[in-house]
């Protein structure tokens, strides 16, 4: 969708999906006539495991406390709007079974200029990893392990 008005109210696009994430649609929704910058981040299901080096991941399984997860995503999006002047924030996470190479999460941020877009995009993904109640299980040929990303 092409937007022509200026000074539109900030908008958010936060949620969970069991279907593959439509990254192109998430990007298109972020385009705004008042924003010269759109930054995005994709988290992708990866073969290597940080906590189990040497073992090959065959797939990932995500689960969420869905209503709280959506609420936390929305809160983080509103924080990005307040802190960085973002005009559009999308944060969509996939749950269920993911094959390697599939997108697990997409973050898209639109701001008037690029510096704030990069900063806001990073803020959203880092806060998502800290706060949003989503769990990830790495499945290997010979078993599976819940991921605990704490240092």
């Amino acid at each position, binding site marked *: 969708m092409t937007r022509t008005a200026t000074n539109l109210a900030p908008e958010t696009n936060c949620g969970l999906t069991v279907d593959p994430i439509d990254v192109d649609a998430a990007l298109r929704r972020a385009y705004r006539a008042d924003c010269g910058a759109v930054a995005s981040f994709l988290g992708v299901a990866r073969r290597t495991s940080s906590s189990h080096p040497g073992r090959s991941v065959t797939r990932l399984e995500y689960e969420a406390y869905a209503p*709280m997860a959506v609420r936390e995503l929305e809160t983080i999006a509103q924080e990005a709007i307040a802190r960085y002047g973002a005009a559009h924030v999308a944060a969509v996470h996939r749950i269920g079974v993911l094959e390697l190479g599939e997108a697990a999460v997409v973050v898209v941020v639109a701001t008037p200029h690029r510096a704030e877009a990069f900063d806001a995009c990073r803020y959203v993904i880092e806060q*998502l990893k800290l706060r949003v109640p989503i*769990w990830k299980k790495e499945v290997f040929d010979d078993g599976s392990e819940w991921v605990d990303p704490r240092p």
Partner: protein
Amino acid sequence: MSTSAIRILYFGPARERVGSESEVIDVATPIDIDSLWSHLIDRHPSLQTIRSSCRLAIDMQYAETGDCVNTGSEVAILPPVAGG
């Protein structure tokens, strides 16, 4: 103080240890979260080893030490989150 039912939700490794996504328990309310944890570990001893890593949410808000659960609240046991 009265006895009432509260719903407990379990996720990720907590769900697997308990063997269920949710249950309704009868406890005297209000109950502080330390006492609730003791109650849950009595029911499910396998939660003991992950208790220190888990957070707890009351009605979809992260709880802090000293917070209390009231009648009708929904409590979630949240192991370390790993989105992204």
